[in-house]
């Protein structure tokens, strides 16, 4: 049952072949069985999950019209506030905090009757590309438990690839959905900025953050995308427009006559041979399906990483100021007579991890008087140039493509002492965030040299998210027929007590 896709689970629930309680229980069993190895979850919410499942079963029995994903279990990145359920954003500074409110994404999941199994591990405050920066220890890649699942949404990606949940919610500020999807052999989508409400998404970098779906198939991902998206008056940056019809796009699997632009700057040096080989094979497949492959030039992408590491830390230095021990979360150093200032200092010293502190310091510096123009100001100009590069490129192609990550999953500890090497893991995903457009990663096969999954990235203009699913579903269908099954079927079983 747990190996089915979410769409198949939905069908089984509708036909009465199974119940949500049974489905939920089998996922809780799987979590119980493998999560001591994978460490995808920070908090498993079995009791509430089963209660929600029973409620959906009862509604179904009573003949109520339900959402297709009603009763299907899901893993939720710990960055989203869920009322009454511990929410930490992977940080010690929020240990034990239970939000008194639901994020808009969680409200929408609940409204659809989706069963939330628990909260998944992540790099602290979504800062990282390996989930090693979690305050609660790393998550392990189900393909090779000595490797990272990528990050920051590594917990959600690992949960889906380890069959602990069929679908999951992540968030993507610089590639935090697409890169872990690539490294764990699943599908992940970062929707257009403003398409999914950020209300209740614990902010890392407000102008770049966006929650999005994970699935093992393009269709499952689309079904979850549709639930999450939509205008929200509680988020001033939310786009007030109809959600693109991603589900029917995911069923179209048609690229005939579509122009696919390969970005010159996102390949070549720095990209692993096996990654480029799988990427080029996918291009050939798309061409054989009737797509026209063109090369596009995006010269400003060279500066994207640098701009990102000024803008994101600047915004985070301000966003994370609220963690001051005054109203919630960790409080240390509150001895008799301690001043508010010394309690704030002691708490932030104890509660934040090294990477978070590094980015707060970077951002504080970049925004300082006398440096603002040189750093934050210049980064915003690069951002504008990247937007223009995309604009031009999208006049030449319907979608743009690249490898999602230049490398496959790396070893735990391999890059954790070298921030720049870690930052380079996001070199191909960051431009999408800076431009506020949408992107997908889907599995393109295994690299010959290490047998690890390779991700194929598709990018589309703002609010044209359906294009990701049209091209993605076509490529997926061609690859699945070539392989004789989904790539995820090749993931190690992990099962059995070891």
């Amino acid at each position, binding site marked *: 049952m747990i190996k089915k896709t979410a769409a198949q689970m939905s069908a089984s629930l509708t036909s009465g072949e199974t119940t949500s309680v049974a489905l939920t229980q089998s996922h809780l069993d799987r979590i119980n069985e493998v999560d001591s190895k994978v460490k995808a979850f920070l908090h498993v919410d079995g009791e509430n999950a089963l209660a929600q499942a029973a409620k959906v079963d009862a509604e179904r029995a009573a003949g109520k019209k339900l959402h297709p994903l009603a009763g299907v279990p899901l893993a939720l990145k710990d960055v989203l506030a869920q009322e009454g359920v511990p929410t930490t954003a992977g940080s010690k500074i929020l240990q034990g905090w239970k*939000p*008194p409110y639901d994020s808009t994404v969680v409200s929408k999941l609940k409204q659809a009757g989706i069963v939330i199994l628990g909260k998944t591990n992540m790099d602290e405050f979504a800062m990282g590309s390996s989930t090693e920066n979690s305050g609660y220890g790393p998550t392990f890649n189900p393909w090779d438990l000595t490797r990272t699942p990528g990050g920051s949404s590594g917990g959600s990606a690992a949960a889906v690839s380890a069959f602990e949940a069929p679908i999951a919610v992540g968030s993507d500020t610089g590639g935090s959905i697409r890169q872990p999807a690539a490294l764990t052999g699943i599908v992940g989508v970062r929707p257009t900025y403003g398409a999914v409400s950020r209300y*209740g*998404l614990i902010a890392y970098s407000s102008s770049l953050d966006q929650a999005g779906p994970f699935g093992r198939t393009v269709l499952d991902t689309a079904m979850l995308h549709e639930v999450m998206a939509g205008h929200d008056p509680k988020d001033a940056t939310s786009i007030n427009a109809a959600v693109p019809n991603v589900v029917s796009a995911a069923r179209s699997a048609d690229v005939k006559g579509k122009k696919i632009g390969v970005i010159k700057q996102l390949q070549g040096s720095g990209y692993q041979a096996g990654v480029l080989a799988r990427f080029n094979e996918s291009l050939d497949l798309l061409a054989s399906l009737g797509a026209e492959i063109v090369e596009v030039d995006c010269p400003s992408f060279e500066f994207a990483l640098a701009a990102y590491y000024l803008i994101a830390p600047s915004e985070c230095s301000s966003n994370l*100021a609220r963690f001051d021990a005054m*109203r919630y979360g960790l409080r240390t150093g509150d001895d008799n007579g301690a001043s508010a200032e010394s309690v*704030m200092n002691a708490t932030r010293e104890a509660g934040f991890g090294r990477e978070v502190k590094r980015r707060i310091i970077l951002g504080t510096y970049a925004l300082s008087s006398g440096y603002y123009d040189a750093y934050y100001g210049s980064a915003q100009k690069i951002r504008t140039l990247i937007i223009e590069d995309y604009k031009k490129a999208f006049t030449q192609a319907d979608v743009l493509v690249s490898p999602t990550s230049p490398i496959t999953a790396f070893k735990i500890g391999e890059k954790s002492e070298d921030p720049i090497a870690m930052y380079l893991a996001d070199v191909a995903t960051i431009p999408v965030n800076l431009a506020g457009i949408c992107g997908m990663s889907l599995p393109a096969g295994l690299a010959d040299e290490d047998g690890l999954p390779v991700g194929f990235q598709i990018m589309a203009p703002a609010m044209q998210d359906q294009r990701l699913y049209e091209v993605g579903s076509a490529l997926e269908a061609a690859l699945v027929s070539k392989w004789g099954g989904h790539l995820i079927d090749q993931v190690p079983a992990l099962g059995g007590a070891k």
Partner: protein
Amino acid sequence: MALTYDDVISKYEPVLGLEVHVELNTESKMFCSCSTTFGAEPNTQTCPVCLALPGALPVVNATAIESTIKIGLALNCQIAPYSRFARKNYFYPDMPKNFQISQYDEPICFDGYVDVEIETEEGPKQFRIEIERVHMEEDTGKSLHVGGATGRIHGAEYSLLDYNRAGIPLVEIVTKIVPGTGKYAPEVAKAYVAELRDILRGLKVSDVKMEQGSLRCDANVSLRLIGSDVLGTRSETKNVNSLRSVERAIRGEMIRHAELLNDGKKVKQETRHFQEDTGLTRSGRSKEQAEDYRYFPEPDLVPVAPDASWIETLRAALPERPSLRRKRLKEEWSVPDKEMAAMINADVLDIVESTVLLGADPTKARTWWLGEISRIANEKETAIADLSITPADVAEIVALVAAGELTDKLARQVVEGVIAGEGKPSEVVAKRGIKVVNDDGALMAAIEKVCAEQAETADKVRNGHVPAAGALIGAVMKETKGQADAARVRELLLGHLGH
């Protein structure tokens, strides 16, 4: 060395800069839907947004933007077609996000002016105060420091935080530097704040109650030698809570600066706090090292881009400017300067105008509100506006007097009755049985009785000493229990005594 104010102004020229914070009277906060009602139980008017819970996001209150644009228009400002919010970053426990959402280099209104008029030795004189900017921001919460002797954070055992005020919309109105006021600097500053208050009240965008903090003034003052064009170092006196204090704070700071300068010392650039009891300021935060607030555009909000035609609609609907209105009313009502000033001081202009609009004679209306009703309010130690008498009541009383149905003296009893809650004027008249004695026969009887009793006085009047009639009229009025019309009594009495 202690200096007098005259010493100061004979040598130095003051330069002013005024920052006024106005709490808007919107029903909900600037970035969330929490109530803004003053005086609620601590922390009952809060939500995830104004407590800055993780994940919460601000959404701009559209009414606050409208109010700010109205203020900008009333202050003759340009309205920016595109402006942005910015984050002002600093840590303080009563500021939940540890940044304040404000506006930095893109304020919504800029480049305006306000003209104020003050009385000088050479007669009324007008000063133009130029407005640098009007921008929107949010208020902080309040810290209550417990256990110390002074209520200040220094020496306190612990502090309590109330976030009810956190996120209340504030508008900050900043002047350009104001030179050229000379010895009138304190009066000009006071007149400016008063004019702003009247403008804001006319716009109905704020309660403008200085004592509750809904209008707060920070006064910047510096001195330079007369004739110099180099600005001196300024001090910034915070939260001056009444018009009188604005005047006192500036005067006090001018003297303090001059004493320092005369002694060859430097004025420190710092924040100072005004103390009502002494009229002096005490040192606060030093501002010698400019704080770095690391402003940057607020990424959680979209730019404010008001439609040009909407701005014109708001402009067309602006109320009359208070200074023009005062001028118009003064002319329409033919009020002497002194009386006009008294009305403004007593804050009865609106209420008198309402009374006149209900048909009352302007002089009569003014006399009632400034006279008897003010007296009763003083006696009860309450504001005129809080008395239960309305402009309609006063208009009715004025009409009754004009119709001869009440004498002034009787009318005072009616006013007293209305204020005591006995009902509308007609009801008080009925209940108390108040009526003018109009029956000449009854009056003549009383006159004859009084003239017989005071024959000597009556003879004086008969012999041409008319002023002596006053005593007789008084006696007749007493005889008729004050219900007679004194003018009619006088007429009949003088006729009776051969005049």
